[in-house]
């Protein structure tokens, strides 16, 4: 039977990619291990190796095709003794194969889906981008708008600030020659050179300390952690050195530094690579903690963070990197740190969230609207200092609140939100504040368990209905 070659998943978060180039043509003999094609993901261009042997009977997806979904058949191989023409003619129309567990990264091996394999859950999927999200009220009048990914918005923010101020530099693992483990620093080395875009060894504790030391002299480092999970190695320098020195020095020694990188769960990377540290850092006086949801906030907030004279924890999200939003052009587009944003006005309930939690909040709000519940959705954007006033003003209007985060429930950011509302607006509440959080377990690997561990739109909807007594 002819074998379908499927579009492989080449990273934990890849859902589709571009078939950049075929390296074999129809009629070619293929041996196991041959490089047959190049596939471009949002992170890198990868070579695809053949697993099966035979004759390449038909190419189903042509060179240069974009947005090819994972598991779509991209070619057919006629195995030994099979009629090549028959195999080619019998090829299925290219549509995604039934959901199966994604092949592990990074070695791309096309596999034939096994029809009678036990059912495997589809991995948890972050809700699609909410249609109702519109940040344009904060855009400068008349600014040209470009549609760009969060990844590119972050890159542009750094590049613009590095052009503006020679004291700004970026250091971290793979930020320079590799162009960023998640491509966030792409092109910076080429523009700014190796003195300002510095590859470090894999020694977070040491290079975080070096960054802080440089910042104490007045330089403005951007320290990239490949993920904030690895910043645990460096957390002493972040907290004991960066956050406290201004106070301990009686105001003499400021520390203008940005620690940034992806935070929280990606997809199927298990407990040590999925931790959400928002609540941890938000506990520390002396730090500011910023966590954008959209591309324009990512850009405007990162630029503000780089200009800020204090140590900033800037929490990104791997899954959001590839999401695109409208962003105004211009070097002076800043979003102030410490200001929440009402991203969807409503009257019946307030949903507060931040970062990737916004995908659940907005998804739920859209669904609830169809049932006649108008939710006001607030994106905190900065966790410390927390703009609780915006939340309180909303709760005074809606009298109900659901707080949403991916982090753990105990001592979480949503716990803080609930307490602050109780302190400031208890008499306005018609129902206890509810929260939707990640479950109180280390992140599991199995697709079904991971899905259960993360929040979802359904949980937010249920919480909203509970506080609305519906």
């Amino acid at each position, binding site marked *: 039977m002819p074998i379908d070659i499927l579009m492989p998943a080449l990273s934990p978060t890849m859902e589709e990619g571009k078939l950049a180039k075929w390296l074999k043509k129809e009629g070619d003999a293929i041996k196991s291990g041959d490089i047959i094609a190049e596939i471009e993901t949002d992170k890198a261009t990868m070579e695809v190796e053949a697993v099966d042997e035979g004759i390449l009977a038909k190419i189903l997806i042509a060179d240069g095709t974009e947005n090819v979904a994972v598991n779509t058949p991209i070619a057919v191989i006629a195995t030994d003794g099979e009629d090549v023409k028959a195999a080619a003619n019998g090829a299925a129309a290219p549509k995604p194969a039934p959901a199966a567990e994604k092949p592990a990264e990074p070695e791309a091996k096309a596999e034939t889906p096994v029809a009678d394999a036990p059912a495997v859950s589809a991995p948890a999927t972050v809700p699609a981008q909410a249609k109702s999200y519109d940040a344009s009220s904060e855009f400068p009048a008349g600014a040209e708008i470009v549609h760009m990914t969060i990844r590119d918005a972050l890159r542009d923010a750094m590049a613009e600030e590095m052009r503006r101020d020679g004291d700004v530099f970026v250091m971290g693992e793979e930020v320079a020659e590799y162009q960023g483990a998640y491509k966030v620093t792409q092109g910076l080395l080429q523009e700014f050179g190796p003195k300002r875009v510095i590859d470090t060894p894999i020694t977070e504790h040491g290079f975080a300390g*070096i960054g802080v030391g440089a910042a104490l002299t007045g330089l403005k480092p951007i320290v990239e952690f490949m993920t904030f999970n690895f910043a645990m190695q460096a957390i002493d320098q972040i907290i004991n050195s960066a956050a406290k020195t201004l106070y301990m020095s009686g105001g003499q020694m400021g520390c203008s530094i940005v620690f940034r990188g992806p935070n929280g769960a990606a997809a199927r990377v298990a407990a040590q690579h999925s931790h959400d540290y928002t609540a941890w850092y938000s506990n520390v006086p002396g730090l500011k903690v910023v966590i954008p949801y959209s591309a324009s906030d990512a850009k405007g907030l990162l630029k503000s963070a780089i200009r800020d004279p204090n140590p900033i924890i800037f929490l990104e999200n791997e899954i959001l990197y590839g999401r695109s939003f409208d962003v105004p052009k211009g070097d002076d587009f800043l979003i102030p740190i410490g200001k929440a944003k009402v991203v969807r006005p409503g009257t019946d309930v307030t949903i507060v969230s931040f970062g990737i939690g916004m995908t659940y909040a907005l998804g739920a709000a859209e669904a609830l609207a169809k049932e006649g519940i108008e939710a006001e959705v607030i994106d905190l954007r900065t966790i410390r200092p927390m703009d609780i006033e915006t939340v309180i003003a909303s709760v005074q209007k809606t009298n109900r609140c659901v707080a949403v985060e991916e982090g753990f429930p105990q001592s979480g950011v949503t716990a803080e939100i609930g307490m602050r509302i109780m302190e400031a607006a208890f008499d306005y509440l018609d129902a206890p504040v509810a929260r939707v959080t990640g479950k109180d377990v280390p992140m599991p690997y199995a697709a079904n368990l991971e899905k259960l561990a993360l929040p979802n739109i359904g949980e937010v909807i249920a919480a909203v209905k509970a506080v609305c007594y519906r």
Partner: protein
Amino acid sequence: MAVAARKTKAPAQSKAAAKGATKSNPAKSGADKPLSNMPVFSKEEELHAYHEMLLIRRFEEKAGQMYGMGLIGGFCHLYIGQEAVVVGMQMAAKEGDKVITGYRDHGHMLACGMESRGVMAELTGRRGGLSKGKGGSMHMFSREKHFYGGHGIVGAQVSLGTGLAFANWYRNDNTVSLTYFGDGAANQGQVYESFNMAQLWKLPVVFIIENNRYAMGTAVSRASAQTDFSKRGLSFGIPGEQVDGMDVRAVRDAAERAIEHARTGKGPYILEMQTYRYRGHSMSDPAKYRSKDEVQRMREEHDPIEQVRGRLTRDFKLGEDELKAIDAKVREVVNDAAEFATHDPEPDVSELWTDITLEKARA
């Protein structure tokens, strides 16, 4: 220079050499023909070193006394016995070179020229303290004097000090970072992360390991697989040498080599200063882990201040009156600092809420 660790002029640690420093009389009067290759100080240099070390000694004694009186709280780590290290290093440094150390930091601050009133008032937690009373013994800073603390987490200052050197390199301002830490900190992981990056990027940093033989109560031999700290950078290709840290001349001599190495773009350099603290680790340490004899022997035979004093009287024929005048001047400064620190008011309560974050960048 060769990467191999040098072991020169460092008798203080070994029993065989324990009596060496005072008896060898290395420098002849006038210093025109030294008997050994021990570096020689001019009279002015000896006087300077004497004054600086004495100031630290008297200041620390006073701090100890004030702690006993309840005027100083919390932790208070005294530098008594180790004075030659920072004084000798500072004699080789030039304006703009940055200094950073751990929590045994009063001596470093005084040697950097920070006001003794401000240091003492910080120890007593008063508003005139260098950190407005908010840092205490372990946390003082002076941008003006290029002193970057004052750090309470063992080893953290090594990465920070490497960062200071990074800034020097980034700005290409021809200054170096003098990064001090102890034999205890020398076992921390981030020290080696810093060594690696410092050498990889050829950062202008001198790592000064003040080996006072005890990490709190743990003797070096009980905590360190490699007790020759000058070798700790060997695998990175960082040169190092052991130095008699009780002899201010040896310290300055080694410091000049090390600083020159760093300043001329050759990267980091390690100086193991073999020194000794007379007091306990902190005020509450009875120091039962070592014998009274050991302390007594160091004080009598290797005291850094007595060595200079001896040379001043013996080689430079300084009279008792002149020495007494210096002593009196130092006491006056220290007493004035103590007086100030005793009567200066505590910080205004509004200070609780200031200096947490900056509103605007400094000009």
